[in-house]
């Protein structure tokens, strides 16, 4: 058996070394492989019999013939057979006897594959199929022609969720194929979700979409000034509501002018149900990323009744409740980091002196933090952030008199600190929230920096990060103090190893680009008939390839490849350049001036 595993993995490694390594590293199932009545092996996993006990090959032939009928219904060659479930491979081998086209097999369970690859010689089969992982790799889906999803029944019994996921991902990927969306991203006027707006916009641009950010930060001072109108809370609330409606009218005006395919609204943006309804009437898909704790902000109830799709950072039981009330879709989408912002820095000694400390905490002065951080006062603690007034014994640790810290300085602090403490906020517990579930942005940002962090244990932290390897978690304040002291005593290399592993994980799985790609796939899969994006225009990179031998191609090769090949996109990229203009630049400049003189008004 061991000989089969080694030979099969070698065969797989020759086409997909990463997958081969992942399977090799998986623990085998405690499954029993036994001979069927006709003598060939069959397998039961988790109590599910994967093939017939009597004659697996005959059963596989019947399945393959039905599958071929479905494949034939597609018509001309070019269909891709996508099979959910590897089983013990009998059905796949039978299918390949009749089907000469492309065959992708999706098997979510590496442990099963580890077990199965040890039972038989699959070298020929592995040479004929693409063994795709779940979640699906975008590149794998991009290769599919007219996919026909075929389900291996017993595999469905083992993992019905996996099949649903495959359906959604495949539908979403296919709907997105060749599409460049026009996306309007709407920020809140202020608050923690404001910077996330820009990260999402950048990620969507990198994914090749046309993006316009509607930044409402200039209206924050107006919102603040409302407090001056009246000492009566009710009166202020009336004015705030009116101000929100005013901003909603502005958002509608922007959407009417920009004609987006999708309006992505960040939590806390001044968008009420009536505005969402008008946006939908304009033909735009509407999505809200509710990056808030549903226990603190109850407006999610109205939101799920208005948007096409709401993305949340908490799972069950909240997810089920939200789905029950929703008119559209609700999905879990955890936070992330933008590695172009949160990254390792080479700091000067002066910067290290300014921003560094043995222990740092960056964040607002919530009640639980005020209480918990006292335990670190003898560990060289520095506290950065606002809303720490009246914090008693912590006052000496507060930096810059509790001023707001810029994102750039945050990154310097994370880089310069030996042990970064990350404690999720709570207004009702004393220290660590024992029921805390979602993972805050700070966790991802510290990880993206490659910084060593101690973070309070959260129910949803695994599988995002591996505790003990990529981050170190604490369950209570006593553990926090112990871990801080222990990790301060350990070597810089030990801490750096944890930080580096965290950064690798972020880059591989937890960037805003990953999140936006996921958001779009789910959105596309769930939108049904409302998915009507305009045809996609090319990007600078695509035109550069088409024009490789021309002056235009040579010019475009030096510009960011994801830039839409539109006049505003190209001109914005050219404005970053200096020096003499070549011919291609001059022609684009001519078109820019022509557009300003004659076309802009017609377009408006």
């Amino acid at each position: 058996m061991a000989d089969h595993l080694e030979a099969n993995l070698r065969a797989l490694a020759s086409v997909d070394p990463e997958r081969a390594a992942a399977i090799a590293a998986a623990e085998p199932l405690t499954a029993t492989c036994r001979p069927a009545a006709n003598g060939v092996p069959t397998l039961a996993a988790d109590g599910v019999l994967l093939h017939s006990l009597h004659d697996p090959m005959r059963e596989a032939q019947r399945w393959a013939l039905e599958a071929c009928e479905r494949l034939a219904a597609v018509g001309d060659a070019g269909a891709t057979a996508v099979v959910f479930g590897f089983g013990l491979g009998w059905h796949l081998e039978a299918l390949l006897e009749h089907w000469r086209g492309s065959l992708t097999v999706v098997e979510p369970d590496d442990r099963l594959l580890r077990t199965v690859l040890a039972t038989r010689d699959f070298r020929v089969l592995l040479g004929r199929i693409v063994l795709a992982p779940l979640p699906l790799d975008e590149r794998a889906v991009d290769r599919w022609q007219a996919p026909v999803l075929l389900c291996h029944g017993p595999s469905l019994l083992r993992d019905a969720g996996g099949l649903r996921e495959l359906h959604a991902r495949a539908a979403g990927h296919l709907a997105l194929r060749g599409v460049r969306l026009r996306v309007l991203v709407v920020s809140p006027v202020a608050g923690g979700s404001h910077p996330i707006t820009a990260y999402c916009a950048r990620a969507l641009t990198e994914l090749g979409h046309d993006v316009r950010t509607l930044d409402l930060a200039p209206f924050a001072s107006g919102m603040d000034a409302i407090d001056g109108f009246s000492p009566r809370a009710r009166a202020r609330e009336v004015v705030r509501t009116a101000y929100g409606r005013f901003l909603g009218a502005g958002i509608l005006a922007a959407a009417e002018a920009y004609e987006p395919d999708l309006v992505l609204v960040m939590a806390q943006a001044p968008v009420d149900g009536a505005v969402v309804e008008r946006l939908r009437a304009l033909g735009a898909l509407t999505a809200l990323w509710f990056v808030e704790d549903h226990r603190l902000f109850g407006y999610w109830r109205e939101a799920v009744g208005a948007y096409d799709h709401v993305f949340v950072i908490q799972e069950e039981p909240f997810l089920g409740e939200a789905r029950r009330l929703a008119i559209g879709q609700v999905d879990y989408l955890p936070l992330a980091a933008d590695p172009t912002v949160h990254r390792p820095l080479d700091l000067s000694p002066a910067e290290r002196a300014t921003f560094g400390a043995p222990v740092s905490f960056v964040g607002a002065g919530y009640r639980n933090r005020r209480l918990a951080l006292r335990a670190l006062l003898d560990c060289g603690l520095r506290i950065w952030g606002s809303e720490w007034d009246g914090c008693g014994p912590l006052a000496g640790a507060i930096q810059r008199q509790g001023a707001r810290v810029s994102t750039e300085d945050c990154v310097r602090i994370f880089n310069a600190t030996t042990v970064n403490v990350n404690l999720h906020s709570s207004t009702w517990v004393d220290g660590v929230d024992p029921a805390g579930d979602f993972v805050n942005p700070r966790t991802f940002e510290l990880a993206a920096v490659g910084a060593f962090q101690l973070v309070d244990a959260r129910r949803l932290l695994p599988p995002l990060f591996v505790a003990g390897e990529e981050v170190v978690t604490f369950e209570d304040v006593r553990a926090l103090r112990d871990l801080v002291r222990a990790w301060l005593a350990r070597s810089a290399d030990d801490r750096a190893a944890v930080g580096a592993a965290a950064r690798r994980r972020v880059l591989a799985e937890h960037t805003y680009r990953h999140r936006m790609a996921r958001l779009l796939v789910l959105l596309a899969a769930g939108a049904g008939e409302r998915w009507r994006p305009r045809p996609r225009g090319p990007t600078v990179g695509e035109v550069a390839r088409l024009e490789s031998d021309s002056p235009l191609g040579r010019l475009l090769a030096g510009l960011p490849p994801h830039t839409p090949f539109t006049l505003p996109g190209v001109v914005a990229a050219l404005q970053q350049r200096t020096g003499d203009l070549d011919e291609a630049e001059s022609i684009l400049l001519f078109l820019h001036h022509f557009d300003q003189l004659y076309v802009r008004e017609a377009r408006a």
Partner: protein
Amino acid sequence: MRKVLIVNLTRFGDLLQTSPTIAGLHAQGDTHVTVVVERNFADVCEGIPGIDRVWPLDLDALGRLLLAEDLRAAYHAVSREIAALRAERFDLALNFSSSRMSAVLLRLIGVPDTRGWSMSDDGHRLITHPWSRLFSASCLTRRHAAFNLVDHYRRVAGVRDGPLRLRFTVQPAMRRRLGERLAEAGLGEGDPLVALQLGASRAIRRWPPRHLIAVGRRLAAAGLRLVLCGGAGDRPAADEIATALGSAVIDLCGRTTVAELAAVLERSDVLVTGDTGPMHLAVAVGTPVVALFFGPALPVDTGPYAADQLCLHAPVPCAPCDHAVRCGNPFCHDVLDPEAVGEAVLARRAGDWAGLEALARRWRQIAWYRTVFDAEGLFDLVALGGEVMPERARLRRAYRALWKAEFDGTPAGAVPGPPLRADAAALAALAGIAARAAEQARRVERLTTSGAPLEVLEHEARLLEDLDAAIQRHGAIHEAAAQLVELHRFEKENLVGDDVPTLARATRLELETLERRAHTLAALLLHHPSAGLPATAAREGTGSHAGFA
């Protein structure tokens, strides 16, 4: 044979205004003239004598490509056009469109002798002829504009000879067809006919229909028939006027091509019009105009380019308004009394200039001008009944004398009008700042060649920048100095290159030139004609006169 490219991407009237330049280029010898125009105006070129090749640019199609976001196709459309133009290997390119778009186009075509707006290698605007720079400065200081656009065109092209009027050839077939149309309307050959032009590019430039009706009633009472001209967009006004005037009117508004309109205007005894394309077309076919100037329009800079045309201007304090202004109370429309206009048309039709003098003295709220050409063949205006705004006229004439001396080498004679002491003082002050700046530039120039430390050089250069800012401020404060300062700015902007000592020297020369000009202009405003004014020939391409002391 010399191959000349003229780029004129503006409108109908501007194209007609190139006609004397084209004739003048041919008068210089064996010349082939290609004119690049927007495709919609290509038919206008068919009537302009001397255009050997019309090169239409389909800007509508280009616009459609951009609206459809097909940037690649738009890029290649432009690229192909550039390659074709470049292959013609022109000897001289004249850009008569003052736009950044045309500047880039001229740079792309890359004719070595390019005049007008172009672009430096690193994307900055260049204006590569002194008359072209003066035109750009005049556009920013239009109250004191000294020359007609046509003369700017001619001088940029180096044209001194050729006809002193616009030119357009009427096709015989058009004459015949028009004769039939007019006969159907009951108008016999030789019957009196006055044309009324209703439209203009913007509302501020359109005289209200009620005033045209009043004028029409006066003319109809004198037994004249009226033909209404205009575009399809003028239909409501045409209906209003036709209804009011009844059978006196022949309504051809929106019903003619350019070639047909030329025949209509040729057939008419007089055209009553604002500052419009049809005004230039009438002049080009030899028909007198009574041209009404209000809003942004000024008789000096875009008036009818031919002798013995009548211009009536509303000389309100805010005239001419900026092209970008959206006026909420265009009272200048009403300053031109329709009764005065009606009498003016009758007198002009009769060629009664003495009568027009009398009318000008009767309606003194209107500035009455007869168009003439001066001894150097440059368009000018003679005020009928005396100058209505003598101070403004004097400053304009002083500028005119200055620029003719500077660029044509014409000795400046006395400038009539009251002495303008305050303006002269402002100009003397400008000369003082320019002298200090020139001295500072000389210091910088010396430092650049003496190997001074960089920080010293930077310090001195900053002082020079401060003085230059003082010059700009002075121009902004004192209207009389504005045109000098704006021209200085364009001339300085035109200094390009990487060699610091050369640039420093050129800057010093520009400042010395500014100082000299300010002194000269001040003298002209104080009855000191031609004191120290040179009669040297203009040195085109530099705009500076380094040897003047």
